[in-house]
């Protein structure tokens, strides 16, 4: 770092280059020439330059200038008129001043069909700007698609440039930020372009869990291109100017006869509130880039790096009197979990992820005593804070990210259970709820859980319970941990059983959970109500020792071990294919193998088939296993 700075300053001193973007090459050149000795430069000035030597210098300068204006001033103006910045302006805003080191500035596309080989169709750097830089002094790799060149469409060269920095990022362990603004595949290049996408997807997958990947959608992003942002850890959008969809409104109209605008189909509002594809949306390009800088401060550079520690002005032993009154006495009254979160975090700052999607769970980053923590909390203000499909998926993905990047997880629990109903069951709440359970259970980062009010039923188990390797589980003095609310237990045993079944059905956690719970329940219900209440309190205070959980696990294992190895393997595979939701830690490991196996299988196919297969896999979305694998 120091050497770099010295080199740069000398370079500035020596050459006094005024170009707004200093490439790495320039810096190196500066440093090198400084080393060569100044006297030589003086000699050179006396020497008779050859014409060709001059023209090389000139050609480089010309090329550099051409690269700097991308698709030309006219297109830049058009871009500005749309309220968007150019690729280079964005990079400049995102990174620290003068820290951007560009690579592949002169790369041009290699297409020779449809007149693309002509000079006026060649642009230095093609439709993407790539390189490395620093955000608040921390290394990051960036690519920024240039809409002014062929609408930012992805050519083979374009993809190669992106792949190059992604490979480098993985090698050195630094995050990748993609600024997407692209019309899609470059049609003239055909399958070359598609292959380019796939190359990027592969790297997205390989980098998952290794370095943080962030996508910022700043323009259109349609068709196959959408999978790259979807594979990255975080996807942010710019309101009103960015779109993400598989097919545009015209195709939608022709296929399903639906009339829908671009904004409705894939605008920032849709993806942050309805689909949950994007994690957050910002007002405009500038707002988005500045917020991204801020967000970057929370993240470690890679899974080998600790998250940055900032000097903390907020005393860690600060008293928060508001916490005494925040949880209402009435169990049915709502309160805002964000009040608790902001009360305890440094400087009351909380960077919420997906604030408008599945609002019944709150996830995001904050700092405690200067260190990044990931916070997950049920939000009693929305749908009583119950867990449903969307909130489980939202929570699971966030927890997995924290686990992959050594970010401790703080969980605030106030959960009445899983949301019952046919829409949830048909939607596969069991499968999705298991993802959250899985994520919490597998996470090996420090886990602190605070039960603020209710922790009922299976949802109690799921929300980073002690039995899922929670490090410390605390409870508010007024917290209730129970199989279900006190009201329900007043029914007759028969009715209770029915209700319980109903709850289980609505609430999902598998047959083993049921049995244990029933056992537990029966025992508890034999006590008089006072004693029951006491017991419940005791359980809260003790943090629940969870013998039942253990038993179940052991039981299960024994069962499985009774099978023949082949059968076991089959079973495990079945589980894997079924979406690997179970509590079976073992299967995870096998899963990797399955994946590898799968790969070998894939490699036996023809390249075309492979490509297809890969695409198919990519479309399957990324529900986490990939990240994991890499991480392990």
């Amino acid at each position, binding site marked *: 770092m120091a050497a770099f700075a010295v080199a740069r300053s000398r370079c500035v001193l020596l050459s006094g280059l005024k170009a707004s973007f200093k490439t790495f090459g320039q810096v190196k050149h500066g440093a090198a020439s400084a080393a060569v000795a100044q006297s030589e430069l003086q000699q050179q000035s006396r020497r008779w330059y050859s014409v060709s030597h001059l023209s090389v210098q000139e050609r480089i300068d010309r090329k550099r200038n051409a690269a700097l204006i991308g698709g030309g001033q006219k297109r830049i103006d058009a871009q500005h008129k749309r309220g968007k910045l150019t690729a280079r302006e964005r990079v400049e805003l995102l990174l620290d*001043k003068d820290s951007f080191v560009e690579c592949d500035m002169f790369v041009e596309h290699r297409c020779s069909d449809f007149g693309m080989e002509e000079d006026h169709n060649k642009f230095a750097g093609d439709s993407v700007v790539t390189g490395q830089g620093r955000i608040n002094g921390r290394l990051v790799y960036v690519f920024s698609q240039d809409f002014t060149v062929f609408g930012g469409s992805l050519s083979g060269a374009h993809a190669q440039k992106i792949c190059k920095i992604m490979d480098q990022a993985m090698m050195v362990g630094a995050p990748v930020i993609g600024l997407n603004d692209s019309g899609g595949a470059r049609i003239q290049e055909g399958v070359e372009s598609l292959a380019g996408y796939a190359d990027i997807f592969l790297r997205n997958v390989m980098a998952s869990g290794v370095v943080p990947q962030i996508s910022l959608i700043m323009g259109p992003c349609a068709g196959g291109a959408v999978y790259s942002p979807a594979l990255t850890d975080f996807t942010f959008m710019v309101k009103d100017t960015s779109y993400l969809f598989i097919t545009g409104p015209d195709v939608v109209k022709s296929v399903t006869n639906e009339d829908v605008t671009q904004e409705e189909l894939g605008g920032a509002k849709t993806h942050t509130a309805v689909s949950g594809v994007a994690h957050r949306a910002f*007002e*405009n390009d*500038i707002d988005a880039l500045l*917020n991204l800088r801020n967000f970057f401060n929370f993240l470690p550079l890679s899974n080998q790096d600790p998250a940055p520690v900032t000097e903390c002005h907020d005393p860690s032993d600060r008293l*928060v009197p508001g916490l005494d009154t925040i949880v209402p006495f009435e169990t049915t009254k709502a309160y805002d979990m964000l009040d608790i979160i902001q009360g305890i975090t440094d400087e009351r700052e909380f960077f919420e992820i997906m604030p408008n999607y599945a609002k019944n769970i709150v996830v995001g980053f904050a700092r405690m005593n200067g260190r990044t923590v990931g916070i997950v909390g049920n939000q009693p203000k929305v749908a009583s804070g119950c867990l449903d499909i969307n909130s489980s998926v939202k929570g699971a993905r966030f927890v997995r990210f924290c686990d992959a990047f050594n970010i401790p997880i703080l969980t605030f629990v106030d959960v009445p259970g899983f949301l019952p109903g046919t829409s949830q069951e048909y939607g596969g709440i069991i499968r999705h709820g298991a993802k959250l359970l899985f994520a919490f259970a597998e996470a090996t980062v420090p886990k602190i859980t605070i039960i603020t009010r209710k922790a009922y039923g299976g949802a109690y188990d799921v929300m980073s319970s002690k039995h899922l390797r929670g490090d410390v589980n605390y409870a508010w003095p007024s917290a209730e941990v129970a199989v279900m609310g006190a009201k329900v237990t007043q029914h007759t045993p028969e009715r209770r059983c029915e209700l319980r079944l109903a709850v289980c059905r609505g609430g999902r956690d598998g047959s083993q959970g049921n049995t244990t719970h029933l056992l537990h329940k029966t025992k508890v219900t034999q006590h008089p109500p006072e004693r029951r209440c006491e017991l419940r309190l005791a359980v809260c205070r003790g943090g629940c020792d969870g013998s039942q959980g253990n038993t179940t696990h052991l039981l299960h294992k024994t069962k499985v071990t009774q099978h023949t190895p082949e059968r076991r393997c089959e079973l495990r595979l079945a589980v894997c294919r079924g979406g690997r939701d179970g509590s079976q830690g073992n299967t995870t490991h096998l899963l990797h193998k399955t994946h590898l196996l799968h790969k070998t299988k894939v490699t036996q196919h023809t390249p075309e088939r492979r490509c297809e297969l890969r695409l198919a896999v990519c479309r399957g979305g990324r529900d986490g296993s990939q990240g994991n694998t890499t991480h392990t």
Partner: protein
Amino acid sequence: MITSTLRRVLLVAKHASFQSRCCVASSRVQYSTVYDSNEKTFDKILIANRGEIACRVMKTCKKMGIKTVAVHSDVDASAVHVKMADEAVCVGPAPTNKSYLNMDAIMDAIRKTGSQAVHPGYGFLSENKEFAKRLAAEDVVFIGPDTHAIHAMGDKIESKLLAKAANVNVIPGFDGVVENVEDAVKIAGDIGYPVMIKASAGGGGKGMRIAWNDDETREGFRLSSQEAASSFGDDRLLIEKFVDNPRHIEIQVLADKHGNALWLNERECSIQRRNQKVVEEAPSTFLDPETRRAMGEQAVQLAKAVHYSSAGTVEFLVDSNKNFYFLEMNTRLQVEHPITECITGLDLVQQMIRVAKGFPLLHKQEDIPINGWAIESRVYAEDPYKSFGLPSIGRLSQYQEPINLPKVRVDSGIQEGSDISIYYDPMISKLVTYGATRAEALQRMEAALDNYVIRGVTHNIPLLREIITHPRFISGDITTNFLPEEYPEGFKGHQLTSEGRRELVATAAALYVSNWCWNIECSNEMTLWPPWQVEVDGVTVEVSGEWNLASALLPVTINRTPRVLQCLSRDAGGDITLQYLGTQFKVRVLSQLVSTLSAHMPEKVPEDTSSILRSPMPGSVVAVSVKPGDVVAEGQEICVIEAMKMQNSLIAAKAAKVKSVHCKAGETVGEGDLLVQLE
């Protein structure tokens, strides 16, 4: 690393010692009273009130060694006054008529806890003679005057007759009920215009009309009687002379059951909005010793005439020639009693308790001093930009009282995390400052307001700070019409001078740069930043400060002038909200590059508000006068929202067809909730 940790420890320690020290200091300031432990009063007192006044009474009870019982509604179960009390009894659900006004429940609580006396505070049951009677029937002492005095002073007409009989100056007017319109015109002519027509049972500005001629008298009579009938169920009216440039000055009296009565000087309460006091001070800048004595003596005469005991307040209107007229007598402890306590050193609550037990007053009139000057600002959870204050609700996410400053007293019944709900008075606290001179007290008030941290609810500190720094207020030339006269267009917040603007901008810029420096990875060491030189409009401003970004307060030195600002919000986009001189200002700090590029950013069109109607405040919907499909004219009433006992009618901003209605009568709505959509 060691040094920074050490520093933090030191900071915490400093903070902790601060608080305890100033508690001692401020209590020393307030009272010269000696709490005689041999003087046995009561064992246990129930405080039939909530909020700051309940806490205030309990503080004195604790000093006197009396056990306290709090009553509370459901929602107040964890309120400060409940925590402070030795015992607490829930008396019902949130609405006041079911809890704090629920006499049966309160009587039950008294029996259950064995309380010997009840302090009613102000408001609620404090001037309810029925309550006093019921207490007397059960041999429980009512800490306040006896039923007779409450009854006599509760009725405006009767109190006026009594005052006249006691040789107290009363406003020229007709001592009796006005029969009809013609009668009204005749009486008005006798008194001489302008006259004021008001409801006999009235209060709070309802059923009040000013008339300058016969026609206006006729109209005023008609409207006032309607209003009086609907508001109080009593359409009796009276007419009196309207006093020009009136000041509202009141005399605190204190009487015992042995015929002794004292006047404890005056309080100037002229700064009002909608007939509710905002800023009070004692003494008044307007009174000379003769007038003061004359007023005091008349007040004592009145108190003696009704055999008054306990603390009470005689309100006067004073015109520009120092003529004073009796207005009414409040037979309770007033909200603004702390300023009298500050200048006299008496603990009024202690005196009330002593008197209630039957002890004679220990002081003589000549023992009552005027020591220095005290000013009280009522800090309300309300939006001062909407007709000088419409109630706002919310949770106090951050709350810090400026009690670390010298000679500052804060009477409050809330703490960080408390909810300001729609059920009760939106007062957050009473901020009292005290000084040897008025200027000193005012200066302390400025500092106290700057150091007062309130987050989570909209508050009226911008208005308070503007009032106390207003040249006209400083000169003492005030009337009850101060606010509407000085802010005819409504309150707009502090208007920045060019120097103020420079200071604000420079501070915001310095804050931005400091924050930016902290973000850079290499600056792990806690460094004291050199003063920032900020050039604003060609003028260099020097800003220095500690830039502790976690603190709610931002003490800075701008061009060697120390100031306390507050940073309310700060985001990555460079938007900073600062509270500067009381008012909140939004500042956007952009780097050169960002500001150049900002030119390309599209302007976002804000939501068209003329076709939607949102609730301007939290409250409940009383009536909805339209349904979907109706055609409304511009200005037509669409619905009525009731908040804090006030009905507000919401009107259509344009002529249109009603598209949808999102509220029904009886519903509770929050601020900004969509009520009705027009096409």
